[in-house]
């Protein structure tokens, strides 16, 4: 009897624990992980305010300008372009009932990849003529046109400088809107562009990677924009070729390479040799630093498997 009771009691005891323990934690999501010592150190340093300001590091200065040119080619069979669902305004958006194809990856007969963007991510002083060639300074605030016709953004990948105003144009007899889902420091916007008219967009700050532009009235329409503070970038043409003039020489530089279907390009063949670009990062440092007036050629081949099917 006694034994029986103790047995019951111990069960009760364990059950009580189980209930207490199970009923305890109430959390949703992943609570932050904090190292109190590190936080205290950081807070102390942050509190130092202007006194703790870092002294400008005397960085290397460019010794001239070079040119980077080359091309992006696909190795293998490109995936077939998908037909888009055009469920509205077919008379304008599908002239002659022609199918409209997606533009994620466009490869020409020779394997040239269109709309690969290569851009310099090394920080550079925006006004310093040693870094920014005068020919770029002259077009610092030049307008860039971004047109649409037959419900297609005519520039699928638009790279521009944060100081350049974009003229959003509509060459269709129907209204469109340009919904700009900016990233980073670039300002977003969503502009209604009536038939045959224009609107203006100024990004004001740069984006770390390309972002979407879409039209909500015609949801199949899509384009990408990349905003940079510096002018050192290029988008490949239909044959996959590109050229960036006046790239600062004599200093280490870092570039990023991005394409809509592959996103950041990681493994490629550069001038015939296999190369890894971690997170799409291509560096010119040490012996690869550009020399003044050099013409650097980048012939890049990308395996078809790198692209989304």
């Amino acid at each position, binding site marked *: 009897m006694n034994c029986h009771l*103790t047995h019951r*009691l*111990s069960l009760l*005891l*364990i059950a*009580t*624990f189980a*209930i*207490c*323990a199970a009923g*305890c934690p*109430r*959390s*949703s*999501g*992943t*609570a*932050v*992980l*904090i190292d109190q010592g*590190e*936080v205290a*150190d*950081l*807070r102390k*340093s*942050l*509190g130092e305010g*202007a006194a*703790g*300001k*870092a002294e400008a*590091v005397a960085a290397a200065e460019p010794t001239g300008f070079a040119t980077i040119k080359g091309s992006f080619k696909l190795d293998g069979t490109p995936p077939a372009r998908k037909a888009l669902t055009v469920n509205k305004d077919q008379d304008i958006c599908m002239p002659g009932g022609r199918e409209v194809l997606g533009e994620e990856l466009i490869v020409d007969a020779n394997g040239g990849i269109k709309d690969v963007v290569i851009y310099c*991510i090394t*920080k550079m002083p925006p006004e310093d003529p040693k870094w920014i060639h005068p020919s770029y300074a002259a077009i610092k605030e030049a307008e860039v046109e971004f047109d649409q016709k037959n419900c297609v953004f005519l520039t699928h990948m638009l790279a521009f400088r944060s100081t350049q105003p974009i003229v959003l144009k509509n060459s269709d*007899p129907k*209204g469109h*809107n*340009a*919904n700009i*889902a900016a*990233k*980073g420091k670039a*300002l*977003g916007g*969503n502009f*209604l562009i*009536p*038939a045959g008219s224009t*609107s203006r967009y100024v990004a004001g700050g740069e984006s*770390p*990677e390309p972002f979407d532009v879409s039209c*909500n*009235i015609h*949801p199949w329409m*899509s384009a990408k924009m990349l905003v940079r503070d510096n002018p050192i970038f290029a988008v490949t043409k239909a044959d996959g070729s590109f050229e960036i003039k006046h790239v600062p020489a004599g200093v280490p530089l870092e570039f*990023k390479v991005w394409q809509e279907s592959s996103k*950041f390009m990681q493994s490629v063949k550069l001038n015939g040799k296999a190369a890894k670009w971690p*997170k799409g*990062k291509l560096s010119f440092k040490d012996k690869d630093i550009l020399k003044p007036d050099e013409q650097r050629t980048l012939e890049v081949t990308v395996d078809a498997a790198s692209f989304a099917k």
Partner: protein
Amino acid sequence: MGSRITAAASVQMDENMRVSGNWRLYLAALVAAVSAGLSGCGSPDARFVENRAFAHLSETAAKYEKGFTRQQRQDVDNVLAALYGTPDAPALPALANVDVSKVLDISKLKLAAGRVGSDSTGRPRGLYREHCAHCHGITGDGNGPTASFLNPYPRDYRAGLFKFKSTPIGYRPLHDDLKKIVVEGIPGTAMPSFRLLSDQEIEALVEYVKYLAIRGETERQFYNALGADITETDFLSKANPEVVAKELAEAKEGKAPTQKEIDDKIAETNPQRIEAIKGYAEGVFTKWLDAVDLMTQPAAKITSRNDAMRALREELSAAGTEEKKLTDAFLLAESQQRGRKLFYGTVANCFSCHGPTALGDGQLGDYDRWTEELITKKPTQELIDEYMSYGMPEPRNIRPRNLRLGVYRGGMRPLDLYRRVRNGIEGTPMPANDKLKPEEIWHVVNYVQSLPYEQISNPYEAVPENRRERN
């Protein structure tokens, strides 16, 4: 933790006691256990939660196969805690290039932060948790306990985007825009009016919402930096003495550095690290100041509806309409007619989304920005499941407003409707329209306001009843 230790001890006790069979001791142990268990229960300190969905977006963009490491995430959390404190003790960073006090008032923040209660003078504490957190969440992620029952979902503040405001798309809202939402609520949603709170309390809540938005956006920027690796992201993590030692050894051709050399090297890089962190925070705060600057410029002034109606009267009068015909009712009808034409025209293009009968059925497949940034415009079920596992609420399509109901989320004043047409609605497909002249926008507003009272179709007019026949 405490209860688990006691549990182990009592199992031990169980073994020892079996021999003596002293059940009184069991009862004592039971009481002790329950009280130990309960004392450990209480509610744990509130903690911010990580923006896992956005972190996942960044790590996917960066093609991190295994995702960010625990260390990377902890680095972000540490820096955020150092900048902004905790839910119980909010803090603000001192920034060299931005006056933080112009954006946030720390004394008001403290009224809203912490546990619900009051201080010795009777002033309230923990207002955010009392009034907001059950829907908007401790972190302002729009994912409080009740969130999943609501349609639309509560706002996730962490992108810094708010729909109903006086500033254009791309700009942060003004303090007063957020205050209006707290005071009046959002008709047609679960957001109630908090008009019964004192002004001081409402002010505190608005400050706290801004605080959570700024903290959340800073977190996103850090993940963005980690993902896109656009700048040196070393700034997030503390310098690792082992790595520093190795670098120094390499520089000295294999000679091991002394501890002092290592410490000096770490101290030397620290200011750059702090500078980088502050740079990110400054970027976020600056956006809130930019909005204020923009809206104080004369160009931001809006003509009133009265001005528009006066202009219409003058125009009609000049065109030879008889003066006695130009009553207010006549002018309003004329304005509504013009608005109707614009509504179905190609410049305003309202009908293409709001539908040919303005029932809000012209465009049904879109997602709002908060959802679309995670799962794209045309998500697969796998993608939806993936992000839901990271805390995204079940996605719903965003619908253009049904204009026949007369319920306007951003406020029912004509000025509110004017702003929706002129500036668009942040984070949604509703675009800004700078092509319409101010008077034209007022015509559209007048027409939209008449829609709940306008017949959708023109059925046969009821034939007047013939009384004689019935009698």
